[in-house]
């Protein structure tokens, strides 16, 4: 069997390793757009902050790929997919036939409307290298450096944490709330107050920004009727998927690639997994699209089983964990406020908030800020498909 995997991140590489165990004679090839072997994107903030060395972010050695007889092609992009004749066009003109194709590309970042030297994203190791190089250059200039962060989600928080570590005077530009799909007013205000107490200046309801440049170099941001001096901008506006790319290939697309519980897409012999799919989550009774490491890894494991012919299905309460300048934030299950019919505050204290999300009287999600003790009981309620009973 000839298996082609597009995407060498945690989902695609986990799938490759599991496929090798299940199908010792299969040909397995990974297309990876970046020029790196597998590394942990979750370690990039640690790397930025100097907590781990660059070499320590890698999860696989090159020897692992050769030992597993998995061909890793780096710097290769799939320009198009012919699902009828079962081959993929690589960016350098070559066609790769497949018997089974796995799409595990992960998503792209949503870009700001302009670019300049000093505008940064945080998705790849090269992005992290670029941020460190920029900060080093600015420090060498010897001036007090101002930074701006644009956005209010997971990546925006990582920028805030990193800039704080580098002692940069930072302004946060929020388009709406922190985690706008998940947090209500009280959660948003809690984080707002915490960030301000840590010295972050915040502008809310920022519709759009305009870059101020000196040549190609960023010198400021125009937003909210004023200009903020800034030589570095961290953009965290969420993710983006190229819907047209998949639709041209005849693959059904909703909020992501639509798959069934065996990770099969609407195109025969084409599977998809990880951040890019809308997966039918049996525990939540909803099609979910998650963008976290644990989910991607588990998808990789189970899509491999499906390709190898196993009927075993995935059952996972997905979760995200992060922090804003030391304030812990955990989200488990479905935390889309618009998709539930009951949100109960089960704990509230100074700097602490816990909300449980329910649908049809059954717990489907939970948000914990500054207090994570109920995590296990909320997760258990979601897993057992029951109402959450507050132990206190």
């Amino acid at each position, binding site marked *: 069997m000839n298996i082609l995997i597009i995407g060498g991140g945690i989902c695609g590489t986990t799938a490759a390793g599991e496929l090798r165990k299940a199908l010792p004679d299969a040909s397995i090839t990974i297309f990876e757009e970046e020029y790196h072997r597998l590394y942990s*994107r*979750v370690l990039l903030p*640690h790397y930025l902050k100097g907590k781990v060395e660059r070499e320590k972010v890698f*999860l696989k050695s090159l020897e692992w790929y050769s030992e597993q007889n998995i061909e890793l092609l780096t710097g290769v992009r799939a320009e198009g997919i012919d699902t009828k004749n079962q081959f993929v066009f690589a960016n350098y003109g070559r066609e790769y036939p497949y018997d089974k194709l796995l799409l595990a590309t992960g998503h792209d970042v949503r870009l700001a409307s302009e670019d300049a030297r000093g505008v940064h994203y945080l998705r790849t190791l090269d992005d992290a290298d670029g941020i460190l190089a920029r900060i080093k250059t600015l420090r060498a200039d010897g001036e007090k450096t101002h930074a701006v962060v644009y956005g209010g989600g997971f990546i925006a928080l990582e920028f805030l944490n990193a800039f704080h570590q580098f002692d940069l005077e930072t302004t946060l530009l929020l388009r709406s709330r922190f985690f706008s799909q998940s947090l209500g007013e009280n959660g948003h205000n809690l984080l707002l107050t915490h960030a301000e107490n840590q010295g972050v200046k915040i502008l809310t309801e920022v519709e759009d920004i305009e870059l101020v440049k000196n040549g190609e170099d960023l010198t400021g941001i125009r937003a909210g009727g004023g200009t903020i001096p800034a030589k570095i901008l961290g953009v965290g506006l969420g993710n983006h998927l190229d819907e047209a790319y998949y639709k041209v290939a005849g693959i059904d697309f909703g909020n992501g690639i639509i798959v069934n519980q065996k990770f099969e897409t609407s195109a025969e012999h084409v599977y998809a997994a990880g951040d890019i799919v809308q997966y039918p989550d049996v525990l939540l009774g909803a099609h979910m699209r998650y963008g976290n490491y*644990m989910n991607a890894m588990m998808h990789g494991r189970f899509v491999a089983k499906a390709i190898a012919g196993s009927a075993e299905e995935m059952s996972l*309460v997905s979760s995200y964990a992060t*922090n804003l300048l030391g304030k812990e934030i955990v989200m488990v299950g479905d935390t889309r406020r618009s998709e539930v019919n009951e949100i109960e505050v089960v704990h509230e204290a100074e700097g602490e908030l816990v909300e449980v999300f329910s649908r049809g009287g059954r717990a489907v999600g939970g948000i914990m800020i500054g207090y*994570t003790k109920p*995590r296990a009981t909320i997760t258990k309620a979601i897993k057992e498909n029951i109402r959450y009973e507050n132990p206190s």
Partner: protein
Amino acid sequence: MQKYKIVVDPDLCIGAASCVTIDPNTFIMNDENKAEVLDHGEAQGGPTYEREIEMTDDERETLIMAAESCPTLAIFVYDETGEQLYPDM
């Protein structure tokens, strides 16, 4: 049964809790949202980030899977001789 030493680095742990999902007999989240190590579901001697535990081969396989699932490589596993089994590079 073989003895294994399991160590969690709380400075690296970000509370993703994938280890708890995969191996709840060996890991539990504490109130600081860090993973602590259990011995077959028990916290004998109190909470800790480090334990020596006897395990069967199947239990060891689950443990390694849990360690591999950690996105920040915060879980270290050693055998009886002190050789680091994971991370293996």
